[in-house]
Each structure stands twice: as structure tokens, then as C-alpha cells.
């Protein structure tokens, strides 16, 4: 299993989530985060924003679905301008459902 963490623009969140649901991945955890990237924030005239608001989507998928989900997020979250965000993928050993105690997604 893989954990996909996508840092995306907050305004793109709904579009991404609905697209994932349409592709058969309805489960997602989201949280608001603040961060910066290579551009060290944002400079608007004399005002410098050090940290910018993003939405973090956390999705756990089976290994074979990883590429599909990452591409879908990329396609939907992309504007082509700086600040579209990043996607990280990391390994997950096991998943449990609390209600049933079963292993697996």
C-alpha cells in the first residue's frame, strides 16, 4: 500500500476530490496546512508572504493504483502557475478498519 500526500491549492480541492470519487477512490483525509516552496513564499509588491495556505489530501491506495491516482490529482490540481503544489508518495505496511478490525483497505 502507498500513502499519497498531495499539497494542492485550496480552491482545487473539490475538483480533485470529485474526480477521485468518480475514478473509484472516494476515501480521502484532508487538512489545511501552510507552507512554502522553492520560491520562498510570494512577493506581491512590497508585501512578502512567507507561508501560503494549501490543502493537504492524504489518500491510501493499493500499490497498483498509485500511478493512476497521482496522475489524476496532477491533472485536476494543475493550473500551470507557480504554487500548484507537490505530491509525495510513501510506503504503508498495513491498514485496519476500526469498525470490523479487518486488515486491508
Amino acid at each position: 500500500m502507498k500513502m499519497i500526500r498531495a499539497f494542492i491549492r485550496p480552491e482545487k480541492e473539490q475538483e480533485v476530490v470529485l474526480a477521485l470519487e468518480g475514478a473509484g477512490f472516494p476515501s480521502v483525509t484532508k487538512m489545511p496546512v501552510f507552507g512554502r516552496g522553492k520560491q520562498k513564499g510570494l512577493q506581491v509588491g512590497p508585501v512578502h508572504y512567507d507561508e501560503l495556505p494549501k490543502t493537504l489530501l492524504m489518500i491510501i491506495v493499493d500499490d497498483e493504483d498509485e500511478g493512476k491516482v497521482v496522475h489524476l490529482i496532477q491533472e485536476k490540481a494543475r493550473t500551470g502557475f507557480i504554487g500548484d503544489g507537490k505530491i509525495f508518495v510513501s510506503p504503508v505496511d498495513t491498514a485496519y478498519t476500526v469498525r470490523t478490525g479487518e486488515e486491508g483497505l
Partner: protein
Amino acid sequence: MKEIIAIIRRDKVPETKQVLEDLGYPSLTIQSVDGRGKQKGAMCAEMDSEMPESFCTAAKLKPTPSAYAIDHTLPKVALYVPKRMLTIVVPDDVVTKVVKSIMKVSRTGKHGDGKIFVAPIDGALRIRTGETDGEAIA
């Protein structure tokens, strides 16, 4: 070392914390998150049957009840349910014990009890003392 990520009901947090304390692993990080699972949020599941066939045309992806609800500004749509995410880093040998205990205490038997994920952690460092790995989480 393993990282246990438990996404559970908000009202089960105090009990879960108590159980972790009793087990001897009191250290944890709590975050407020919004989540959804197979049921697609609070209301979307029951909307499945209400989505008309005509909505399914011309979309590249399979359209969804939530997409329909949002498109038509229906009041029933609730994409997310508020949850608490607990992150606990424990040694390898106690992972099963901790996971089982969390599941036992935060189970209600209804949908929405949450998920627990176990992921590997490569290293740990206690900032105050500079202790690494096993010592850092002890």
C-alpha cells in the same frame, strides 16, 4: 520503528489517550482533520439512488452523487466528516498490541469508526538531547 496513523471519532480521543497511557506509550500527536471513506461522506451514500441517468453523459470520468449534488446546489451534500488523526511512533514489536487496543476502544460498530494505517519510520531524533532512533521514542 513504525508510525501508527489512527483516524478516529472525535469523542473517542480521551478514551484512546487513556488506553495508550496505560500501555506505556503516552506520546502522540493529534490533528483535526476532515475525512471521508467508502460511504463518501455523511450524506452522499444515500444520494446514489437519487442521481438521474441523464447526468451521466459527456463526462470523462464516472459522475458521482456528490458531483450531482454540488452541481444542483442540493442541501444534502456533506463531503466530509470531522475526525481526529492521532500519530504515534512506536517500536516494531508493540505495533500489533497498540493497534488492537486502539481498535478495541474506539469501536462503536457503526460506519465511521475510522481507519488505522501503519507505516515505516526510518529515523527519529530527540531535539533536546540529540538521542536517536530507539532512545528518542522511548
